[in-house]
């Protein structure tokens, strides 16, 4: 006799996995609404008895979290806008325009991907110290103005576009910049969306570099702020989790809203990067 499950056996794998992946995040949100006593209870509780806002209140009054949030938004916004402009311009040049030094420049750019951040951070720190932008927000966003990955991604996309449209525009007398802005860019929307999401994720979540470059706590980004909290409030879990929620929620919401785009971005990083 053959006994059959009333559902696909794949659920036996996927259900526990899905819970392992999502429950810690659920606990993060729930814990942020607990009081200190509730958290320190034994055995531990998962769901708060009522909505305690102490964690958030303490965070808002005793730390610069609003400032950090604004700083992070600013750094990420500059990173995304600058990436969209500079990387699409350069990607287009490397895909379509013919100019002296193009091949060499592109090879050098691709090669930079191999150089690890740990090698660069010492001289970059010294360099920024000389120009006097250490400990300012500029130090946090300057490394995010453009990236080899962004240039590469846009170049690959432009290489895949048919040339005919651009040629038609050129025949109509449009210059290179006009053609680029009014003909090419509108077609590049999917690639630009991918680039924007990728840049947003990596600049928003960056810890190592701002940690090195910024020590003034009014100029922290959220990630540096979170890490510094952790050092000073080791046991204030409701505050720590509240900070986590504030730092993570914007990206999670964006992910839930634009899931398809996000997944396309991850695939693109994977297959073509």
């Amino acid at each position, binding site marked *: 006799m053959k006994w059959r499950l009333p559902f*696909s056996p794949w*659920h036996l*794998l*996927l259900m526990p*996995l*899905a819970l*392992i*992946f999502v429950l*810690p*995040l659920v*606990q*993060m949100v729930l814990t942020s609404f607990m009081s200190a006593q509730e*958290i320190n209870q034994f*055995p*531990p509780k*998962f769901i708060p008895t009522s909505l305690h806002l102490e964690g958030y209140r303490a965070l808002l009054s005793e730390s610069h979290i609003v400032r950090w949030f604004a700083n992070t938004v600013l750094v990420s916004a500059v990173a995304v806008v600058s990436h969209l402009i*500079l990387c699409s*311009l*350069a990607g287009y*040049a490397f895909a379509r*325009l013919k*100019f*002296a*030094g193009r091949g060499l420049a592109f090879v050098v750019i691709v090669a*930079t991907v*191999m*150089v*690890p951040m*740990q*090698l*660069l951070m*010492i*001289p970059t720190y010294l360099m920024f110290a000389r120009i006097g932008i250490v400990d300012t927000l500029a130090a946090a966003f300057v*490394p995010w*103005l*453009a*990236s080899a990955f962004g*240039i590469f991604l846009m170049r690959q996309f432009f290489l895949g576009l048919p040339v005919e449209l651009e040629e038609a525009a050129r025949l109509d007398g449009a210059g290179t910049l006009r053609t*680029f802005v009014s003909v090419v860019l509108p077609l590049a929307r999917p690639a630009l969306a991918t680039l924007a999401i990728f840049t947003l994720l990596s600049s*928003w*979540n960056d*810890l*190592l570099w701002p*940690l090195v470059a910024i020590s003034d706590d009014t100029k922290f980004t959220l*990630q540096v702020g*979170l*890490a510094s909290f*952790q050092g000073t409030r080791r046991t204030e*879990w409701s505050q720590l*989790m509240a*900070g986590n929620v504030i*730092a*993570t929620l914007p*990206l999670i919401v964006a992910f*839930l809203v634009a*899931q398809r785009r996000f997944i396309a971005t*991850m*695939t693109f990083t*994977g*297959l073509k990067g």
Partner: protein
Amino acid sequence: MAVTFAATPRTQQESAPRPPRRRGRAARRTLIGWGFAAPATLVVVGLSIFPAVWAFFISRTKWNGIAPATALGWRNYERIVQDPDAAAAAKHTLVLTLLFVPGSILLGILIAVALNQKIRLLGFYRTCIFVPYVASAAATGILASFVFNPQFGAANEVLRRIGLPTQGFLENPNQALVVICLIALWGEVGFCAVIYLAALQDIPAELVEAATVDGASRWRVFLHITLPELRPVTVFTTIWQTITAMQLFDLIYTTTRGGPMNSTQTVVYYIYELAFQTQRLGYGAALAYLLFAVTLLLTLIVMWYSRRNGSESF
């Protein structure tokens, strides 16, 4: 930035003053080309090649960043070989990489195959499994130190409920590195799964159908058709995840800060401490160069090996 101003005019000078008409057109093209390419190129090259060269000079000195540097030649590199802390850090990085890379690839393939089935709740599963990827490593680390807290963390509570002995996790020098690896997998596996999922959906359906018609079992189809088709992607994920594991910093910083008893001090963490905690810039730069050399070597080996086996992915 100094670099920007120094480099922009030079490229223009090289190409601008050329009187004959045809040359003039080529010069104009070069000017336009560089006008498009120069800003991004300068940022990328100015913030990587230039500091990388500088780091090399720093690595051959003894320097605290303030007092004048003393030239040491290759002595920093020689010292690394004898440094027990560097050896321990290298061992920890190796263990982490050897656990993380195969773990994320196997789990990634497993999840991708499961998500490629036509079953219910697929959207729910997909969302749950991918959402940790957008959370920052810093937030993940803080969350993990709560979940794995020995006294009131959820992990020990689960062990207690099912009647197993509780553990020290991140506070136990024998477990901390493995726990960090598990946390890293939690945060990064979604990335591998997405890539494998896309690759699975790219496998021509006729291939699988033909094999099934010929009487192959599902397991054999997977082994002899699906897995070989995934090989180019695996080359990429191996390189990518190896670099991720070798450069893992944020998670260690927000969980153990290298402890307990230095059991999670990896090479990148050690470099950070050398350069920004103890101000030994020259020695830190030398170690960073060594790490770069190893990363480069590993990447080249994986690419060479995959090319020899006929599965190019680059």
